[in-house]
């Protein structure tokens, strides 16, 4: 009888330990890995119009895309490379260029819908900058 109780207690201990280990493992998985998912800081384009946001996290970690899905066929892996090009416009997106490669209405919402999902505007940009400012201050 005593032995059975001992086994039971030990078993319960092992089980809870395993559960906790799994939970911590899961937590590690939700942590953002820049090497796997790309830079954490959002990219904000101000040309040809102010201000358009792109977040690697939403596309890689949340949507499950690889780096190769966009690099280097659609976007070069260089900061500000797309902005320098003259064809980085909505017209190109509608023809399937840049973001329009997926944002065509079937793979993801079409480029000519939900404008403000990406176009955060001058106000959104200012808010992003001020949030960044306060975050730095609070550290």
């Amino acid at each position, binding site marked *: 009888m005593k032995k059975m109780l001992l086994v039971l207690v030990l078993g319960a201990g092992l089980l809870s330990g395993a559960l906790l280990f799994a939970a911590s493992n899961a937590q590690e998985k939700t942590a953002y890995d820049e090497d796997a998912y790309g830079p954490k800081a959002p990219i904000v384009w101000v040309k040809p*119009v102010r201000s358009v946001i792109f977040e690697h996290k939403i596309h890689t970690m949340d949507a499950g895309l690889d780096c190769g899905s966009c690099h280097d066929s659609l976007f070069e892996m260089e900061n500000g490379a797309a902005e320098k090009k003259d064809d980085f416009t909505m017209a190109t997106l509608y023809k399937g260029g840049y973001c329009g490669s997926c944002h065509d209405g079937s793979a993801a919402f079409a480029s000519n819908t939900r404008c*403000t999902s990406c176009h955060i*505007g*001058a*106000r*959104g940009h200012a808010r992003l900058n001020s949030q960044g400012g306060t975050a730095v201050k609070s550290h």
Partner: protein
Amino acid sequence: MKIDDLEKTTSEDLGVLPSVVRRNILKLGLVVTGMYLGGSILSLTSVRNVYGAGVVPEVGKYPYNPHYSMVIREKLCIDCEQCKEACVKTNHVPAYGFRTTILEKRRSLGGEKFETTFMPVLCNHCNRPPCVRVCPTTATWKDEKTGIVTMNPGRCIGCKTCMTACPYNARYFKEETRAVDKCDFCFESRLSKGQTTTACVEACPADVRVFGNLADPKSRVFKLVHAPETMIWVLRPETGAIPNIYYINS
């Protein structure tokens, strides 16, 4: 009048009034009060006709020609602020004021998701402009021909009453001219010189702002506000100012 004569006169105070007279006055008072109460609380009297009482005037019933108005296709606005920049440049607007600006609304989509809507705003060139009504020097008026709410800076004394009266916060005090300044649909800077659009309309890359003559059935503004299955709204309709800036989403 001598004291003796005065003593012979009858008193005029309320104490000597016969009760019939008092009752009649009281009844009259109640009737008058009842009339007003009936009108405002129960709306038994002058209620606006519900049918056809939309925000867009009925076809053919525009008080002006050209009846200048603007249609704003709200959901297309991306707050790039090129309209603001064009307005500042064209109309020499100082950094502390604005003739047009963009407001932001954020609506929850559940969870941590939000949808942002940008709302361009400017003078609504109301048909019943509260700013014009309050101006003590007639420095601002509704142009008889075009319906544009116009300012004469030379006549403005800077009392800022119009700024308080405006339901749309479309006026600011310009230090340089010591007068209130506001949007005039670019009348002075462009329309009077033969151009057909405002600077903000021309600058908009997303075709959000559409400007034109509402009294002309061939104009794009007319077609937009009279299109089938279109939801049209104005800002603050409850003020009764009858604005001429219409908002749509299609």
